[in-house]
């Protein structure tokens, strides 16, 4: 049986080739001990049985990400008979870099030159015979979706598997002297059979953390590390950082190959031209802010009439249900002015808002713009010394912080990952959006969207600043690099957007029917139980909940909250949506509507500070559980809670008091 490994950059058409080769003979699972998907399959060609494994898509074979480690360990340890490197003919420079790294490993390589149609559309003509000669390996031109080149690839796999003698060396110019010296030392020590010694020498010079760790553990590892230090001392002055020197040397070779094998100047493609504008150094961020503003404006205005209709219908329903149980106390608890239906109804009336936001986000994701937004934020983060990979969890956090925390799994470095986890709850999720919308609409009406946007920008800024503070104090190590893959632009599909909206929205329904309902029932029971007699009461001021709220209110007096707001924030710990439901219940908002009531009690400055508090203070209980699971430590979970409470309180305090000092209480 011939064993074949399929590898390549993400989005080069590797999966299409894998499917073309193996058809229905596939098995999908996970790589041992990892959450990365493993696909393997079989097929027969000219009587030869061929086993294919689809390795994770990678841009290089360093040891910075799980995908890279899986791919290179498979080639090193499993030693497949043939490695097929799938490359994108319309983007040769980035793709050939990976080919050189696979050749360094000493693997028998076939290059599958996919997307030839795209290259032709971009006016690129590739001389495949010359490319074969320059690389020293077979090159198969392909258009995978049309199955063009599949037959030729199968033939080459069988031929290559029969090759016994195989040796290709990529020559790295001046660096050769250093590589040869270290290779000789490694050959003398005979440390590892599994490794190609030349590759080992290159990786040691590059300072590859995984290889260095293995050498340290090896019996004669100390000798090698000693020699490595001596070599580095001698040559580092001349070559500088070896890792950078090797990257440059590989790109020099790639440029030479392209110069000789590729004809025609690549025409500026429409997507590249558009990227030039959307990722412009100066206009990129204003475009991003404009699109974000449009998204919120659309969400707010398109959902308002539907929220109002739903709210009116729920009020009618509440009126009709009064007295339905026949038990006065239960009736009051469920359908009364301070009843659970009042709270849950207020939350449900925000379903149009949440659904519209998901719809708008899905359209943006589908168009390909979200990846560009990630690139823009990455550029800013890199300048601050932070990993750009945090962008993905941030975007996931806009939907739900639990998804954001789990999304940090894509970050390779442990330190970067912890930073991303503990700062993710500062990103406002949709649950908090519902809270902000009620308050913003009550106090700012026409400018409500601007207030919402200011909170989102504040959340992102605080998350970045906190990450920066942690990076400069607790974690001073190196950060892992991040390559943002920019997918092609496409016309967003309404069907996809509606489906996504429904899937995400139904999760909200589920939560409203379980956690939120339960939380509101507890609040309802506490609000109707007399604090001194523990019997039923209709006077919420005498209730157990009022006692709890009034005790806590002492702490929040400087922020000008009454006990009801304190209790609502307190129960927001269970789920943030509860804040708005609880506020509606505790102020008895069914008749007049919550916005009008809040306006009677508070001024805009106090409520802006309250929103900032809700934005920053403790994450919900499910997010905390996710933080505990992902950091594997109570220390970081408690740290997240504490710093967020202190930061929230401090910011709200400053907003209220500086605000009053500057413009007076009447704004």
């Amino acid at each position: 049986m011939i064993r074949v490994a399929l590898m390549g950059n993400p989005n080069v058409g590797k999966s299409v080739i894998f499917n073309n080769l193996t058809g229905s003979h596939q098995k999908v699972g996970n790589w041992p001990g990892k959450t990365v998907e493993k696909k393997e399959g079989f097929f027969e060609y000219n009587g030869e049985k061929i086993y294919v494994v689809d390795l994770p898509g990678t841009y290089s074979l360093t040891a910075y990400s799980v995908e890279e480690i899986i791919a290179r360990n498979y080639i090193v340890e499993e030693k497949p008979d043939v490695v097929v490197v799938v490359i994108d003919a319309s983007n040769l420079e980035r793709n050939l870099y990976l080919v050189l790294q696979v050749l360094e490993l000493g693997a028998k390589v076939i290059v599958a030159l996919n997307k030839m149609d795209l290259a032709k559309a971009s006016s690129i003509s590739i001389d495949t015979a010359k490319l074969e000669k320059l690389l020293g390996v077979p090159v198969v031109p392909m258009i995978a979706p049309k199955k063009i080149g599949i037959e030729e690839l199968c033939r080459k796999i069988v031929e290559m598997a029969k090759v016994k003698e195989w040796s290709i060396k990529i020559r790295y110019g001046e660096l050769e002297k250093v590589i040869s010296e270290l290779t000789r030392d490694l050959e003398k020590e005979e440390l590892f059979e599994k490794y190609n010694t030349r590759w080992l020498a290159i990786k040691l010079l590059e300072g590859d953390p995984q290889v260095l760790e293995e050498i340290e553990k090896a019996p004669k590892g100390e000798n090698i590390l000693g020699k490595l230090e001596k070599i580095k001392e001698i040559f580092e002055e001349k070559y500088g950082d070896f890792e950078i020197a090797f990257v440059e040397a590989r790109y020099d070779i790639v440029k030479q190959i392209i110069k000789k094998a590729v004809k025609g100047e690549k025409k500026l493609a429409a997507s590249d031209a558009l990227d030039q504008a959307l990722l412009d150094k100066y206009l990129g961020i204003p475009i991003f802010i404009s699109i974000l503003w449009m998204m919120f404006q659309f969400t707010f205005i398109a959902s308002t009439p539907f929220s109002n209709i739903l709210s009116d219908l729920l009020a009618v329903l509440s009126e009709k249900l009064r007295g339905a149980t026949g038990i006065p106390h239960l009736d009051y608890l469920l359908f009364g002015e301070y009843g659970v239906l009042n709270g849950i109804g207020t939350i449900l009336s925000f379903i149009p808002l949440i659904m519209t936001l998901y719809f708008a986000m899905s359209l943006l994701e589908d168009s390909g713009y979200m990846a560009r937004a990630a690139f823009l934020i990455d550029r800013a983060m890199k300048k601050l010394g932070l990993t750009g990979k945090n962008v993905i969890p941030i975007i996931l956090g806009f939907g739900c912080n639990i998804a954001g925390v789990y999304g940090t799994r894509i970050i390779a470095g442990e330190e970067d990952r912890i930073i991303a986890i503990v700062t993710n709850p500062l990103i406002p999720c949709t649950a908090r959006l519902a809270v902000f919308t009620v308050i913003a609409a009550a106090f700012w009406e026409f400018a409500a969207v601007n207030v919402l946007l200011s909170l989102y920008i504040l959340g992102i800024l605080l998350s970045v600043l906190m990450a920066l503070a942690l990076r400069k104090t607790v974690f001073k190590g190196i950060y892992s690099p991040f390559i943002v893959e920019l997918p092609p632009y496409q016309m967003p599909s309404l069907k996809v957007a509606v489906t996504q909206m429904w899937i995400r929205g139904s999760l909200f329904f589920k939560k409203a029917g379980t956690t939120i309902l339960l939380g509101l029932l507890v609040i309802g029971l506490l609000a109707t139980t007399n604090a001194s007699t523990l019997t039923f009461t209709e006077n919420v001021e005498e209730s157990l909940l009022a006692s709890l709220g009034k005790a806590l209110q002492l702490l929040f007096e400087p922020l000008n909250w009454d006990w009801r707001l304190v209790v609502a924030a307190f129960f927001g710990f269970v789920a943030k949506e509860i804040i708005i439901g609880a506020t509606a219940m505790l102020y008895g908002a069914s008749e007049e509507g919550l916005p009008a009531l809040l306006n009677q009690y508070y001024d805009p400055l106090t409520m802006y500070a309250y929103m900032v508090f809700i934005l920053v203070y403790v994450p919900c209980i499910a997010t905390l559980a996710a933080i505990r699971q992902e950091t594997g430590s109570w220390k970081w979970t408690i740290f997240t809670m504490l710093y967020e409470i202190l930061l929230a309180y401090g910011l709200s305090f400053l907003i209220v008091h500086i605000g009053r000092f500057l413009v007076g209480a009447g704004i």
Partner: protein
Amino acid sequence: MKKIILCYGGFLGILYVLYGFLQVYNGLISWGLQGDVLQLGIEIYETSIPNVFPDVFSGVALTTTGLLFLTSTYHSLKKSEYYRGYIFAAWLLSILLMLLNIVELFASFIDAYYPFLLGYKPGEWSLATDPWGIAPHLILGALAAPLYLVFRDFIRELTF
């Protein structure tokens, strides 16, 4: 043809930047800055057309659109291929802003008149009283819309 399009793009760019700055200024006035709200349009029944309602972020969006139009003209004068991307991005933003304006009018209309369907007294709404009624987003977007004829091939190439 290319020259006409770029001149037209430049003209739109100036208008977008002008109304964008006005809107940012009016927005800052509404936030407490000293001064009077400024309008640049025709007065009909005490309503300015277009109505530059105060909104800083909306002003930023208009200004950005205008700067994209102007940058495309700049790249074209430099004979750089990049002009295509800038003018298309500007056109796309102008169309999205126009659509947003239309959605806002539609939503405000429903919000005002749905109580009528439930047997209540409807609210009051008219193009003249709605700040978004006839805003720069709508008028400038309508002026930019015909450029679609120029971008058909670009859109086809983009979604290839």
